[in-house]
């Protein structure tokens, strides 16, 4: 699946447009994406940090694309998630990399890291489950 097609899919999802991100790389088990900062993503207006829910949403979106990049109508169905917030997400681009740790017939388990300037300094890590049926 080529990136142009995937990003065309992404741009058809209203909430993905709200998040405003682009998929940068993709293979059968990984997806990497970059989100552009916007005022509507702010959780702490004084410090201009990303809202934790926006970070979790962006990681969920990246995970769903890693699981089903060729989604027809709606992205992969999420079951649940756990997110660990490690550092504040400051004003600027946010990146995420999703690794599909297991993909069976019915379920998929995906681990996601997000970061800003340095990949080693994670902003958040998450574990997401999807229903594939």
């Amino acid at each position, binding site marked *: 699946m080529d990136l142009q097609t995937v990003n065309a899919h992404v741009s*058809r*999802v*209203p*909430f*993905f*447009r*709200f*998040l405003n991100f682009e998929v940068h790389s993709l293979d059968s088990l990984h997806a990497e994406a970059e989100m552009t900062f916007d*005022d*509507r*993503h*702010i*959780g*702490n*207006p*004084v*410090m201009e940090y990303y*809202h*934790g*829910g*926006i970070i*979790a*949403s*962006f990681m*969920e*979106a990246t995970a769903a694309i890693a699981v089903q990049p060729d989604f027809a*109508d*709606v*992205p992969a*169905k*999420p*079951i*649940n*998630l*756990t*997110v*660990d*917030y490690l550092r*504040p997400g400051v004003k600027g681009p946010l990146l995420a990399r999703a690794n599909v740790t297991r993909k069976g017939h019915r379920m998929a388990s995906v681990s996601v890291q997000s970061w800003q300037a340095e990949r080693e300094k994670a902003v958040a890590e998450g574990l997401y489950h999807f229903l594939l049926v």
Partner: protein
Amino acid sequence: MSDITQKKMEQIAQMWNARGKSLITHMALEIEEVSTEVVRVRMPFNKDFCVDAAQTLLHGGILTALLDSVFGLANFVAIEGVSTMATLDLRVDYLRPARSRADVIVQAHCFRETRHIAFNSGNVWFDGHEDAEIARGTASFALTRGATSLFDAMTKGKAS
């Protein structure tokens, strides 16, 4: 009746209004009930938060964002003397597809606070369908206690 003071209510209103450019402004949240025991907030339907072309199915992420926001409010109301608050971790179960154009209702509370940590849980449903929860979440928050109140930081622009 709740034991929440008038002063705290006014602070909540001011803090809510001070969030000019932020996600919760975009979510157009309305506080329905607020006490030290429970906080209930309403989010009107917003097609920007949907995943489908027909715009009737909400993305799970927005429910996660709602829970995170309302947990923060519940902690602000229930805990005295907090100067900063940060989400440590968050778990959300999506119990059924969030397919409706009804308003979303979120109810949350802080079920345990210690000097450093607050523990929260919350439920999400579509208005009029409390018996069919669409999501449930739990979270923990790291608290910093100190002289500068969270309220002052949020409304007077004092950066830490």
